């Protein structure tokens, strides 16, 4: 057993890709299931805050782009559930974990989308932060996850540009539109920084995940990278992040930033964010109300298969 684990670690260290049929430590399997399914749930729950604005999109062009974006997220959910399924867990079980609160999803989606500008801010910041988190996963050790991420990251960067372009249009628009953009940045900025997870000192999974190349950079490193990348983009827009302590640190070559409200973060993780209940209820409702539909599809498929069989027997 020890030898198997050593050999496994050696493969990872050599940069080899682990495939579903390969031997793997149970904990590696579990950690991957947890992370991939959490990511899949985030894609699917993430459809809700933006879905909220499809019917009210301000132009046909924006409506179509938003619909297509949310459809991409559903597609991401599909690839990721499939990747998790290769580890020997079914989609139904994964949904069950989501619905019972056993599995988590990204906390950011527990914040409300209040105006059209939120469609810009979400694309720019939330998809932007997702990319920073995920680019490293295109080279994660588990093959199906890495391959899903290659495809997903391409689409996420398209979403990020699309969101930024919504913001740019607002900021070039009327005073009311610019205020709308600023207000959205004010509300989404801190939750976006929280997307990178707790500070390294408090992060429970980091070390082992780094060893297995399930994770490749620390939460704090990624957060800093995101901030450094995003501040110049806000400057182009002419709006400011709601952080009085933010300033360029010449020595570090990075932006310094203010204290993140980790109490808020943990409150939301525990289920006490502004929309946790609505988001989960929406998913549970869709699932429960869809049960008779899924049952019908199974029953119909069985009937069709029986008919085929009878034809075969008769022939």
């Amino acid at each position, binding site marked *: 057993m020890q030898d198997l684990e050593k050999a496994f670690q050696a493969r990872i260290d050599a940069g080899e890709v682990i495939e579903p049929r390969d031997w793997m430590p149970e904990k590696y399997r579990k950690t991957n299931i947890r992370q991939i399914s959490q990511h899949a749930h985030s894609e699917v729950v993430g459809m809700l805050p933006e*879905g909220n604005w499809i019917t009210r999109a301000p132009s*046909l062009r924006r409506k179509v782009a938003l*619909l297509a974006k949310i459809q991409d997220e559903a597609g991401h959910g599909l690839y990721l559930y499939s990747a998790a399924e290769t580890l020997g867990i079914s989609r139904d079980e994964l949904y069950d974990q989501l619905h019972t609160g056993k599995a988590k999803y990204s906390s950011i989606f527990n914040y409300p989308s209040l105006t*059209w500008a939120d469609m810009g801010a979400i694309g720019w910041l939330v998809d932007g932060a997702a990319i920073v988190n995920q680019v490293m996963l295109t080279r994660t050790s588990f093959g199906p996850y890495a391959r899903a991420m290659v495809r997903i990251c391409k689409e996420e960067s398209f979403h990020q540009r699309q969101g930024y372009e919504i913001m740019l249009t607002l900021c070039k*628009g009327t005073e009311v539109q610019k205020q709308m953009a600023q207000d959205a940045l004010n509300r989404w900025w801190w939750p976006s920084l929280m997307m990178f997870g707790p500070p390294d000192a408090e992060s429970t999974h980091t070390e082992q995940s780094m060893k297995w190349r399930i994770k490749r950079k620390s939460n704090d490193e990624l957060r800093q990278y995101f901030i450094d990348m995003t501040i110049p983009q806000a400057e182009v827009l002419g709006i400011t992040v709601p952080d009085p302590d933010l300033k360029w640190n010449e020595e570090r070559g990075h932006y310094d930033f203010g204290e993140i409200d980790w109490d808020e973060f943990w409150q939301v993780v525990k289920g006490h964010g502004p929309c946790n209940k609505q988001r989960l209820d929406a998913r549970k409702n*869709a699932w429960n109300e*869809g049960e*008779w539909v899924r049952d*019908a599809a199974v029953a119909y498929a069985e009937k069709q298969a029986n008919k085929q069989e009878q034809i075969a027997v008769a022939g």
Partner: protein
Amino acid sequence: MNDQLYQYLLLLGDNPLILGHRLSELCGHGPSLETDIALTNISLDLFGQVRHYFQYAAKLNGENQTEDDVAFLRYEHQYKNTLLVEQPNTDFAYVIGRQFLFDAYHLPLLEQLMASKDKQISAIAHKSIKEVKYHHRFSSEWVKRLGDGTEASHQKMQTAIEDLWPFVAELFEETPLEQAMKEEGIGADLSQVKEKYDADVQNIFELAQLQRPDHQYTQSGGKKGVHSEQLGYILADLQYMQRAYPNMTW
């Protein structure tokens, strides 16, 4: 401007607009990710068609009109969609029933419009028919699945069809506008569309173990701008941004 052609483009565009809207309400709430993606796809196709019709209409109108002016800045009575497509997403059987009852009309309608003397309408129809063939395949497959699935799904599908049936006749009620467009060789001949419709619906209902409703009463008015109570709420959503923040670029 050619007002009749303009009005006819509204008539053609408003059904996909309102049906696309109804489907877009479901995004993220479908019974499975796969159906969610498929329904969003149909919604996207329909909005694509709307944009073709309304860009053309806006150009005819001149006066710097845009597709968005046509889509968002009309009053209730100026929308010409049929009552069928504005009916709500009561449950998945209604969504599928409404879709199939519309697709079975939309497909032969576009077949006719491909032969329109109006080059642009003909081009839009050529492009759209590929999409609508897929919509029809999707909705008719689901009518069969639900109709011939479980006892419960059969009941729900039959109920949805019963409830939606009164709105079917309006699809084929020829308005003076449609008659004029048909006579000019621009518009569709609805009697021919109906022939195909009846055969198609009969066939799918049989395969789905569904009874064709036999009630005689019908509901219509949408094409003339007299809608059900549903449309006001749809427009409240659809027009919200344009009304609350007029004259801005998005």
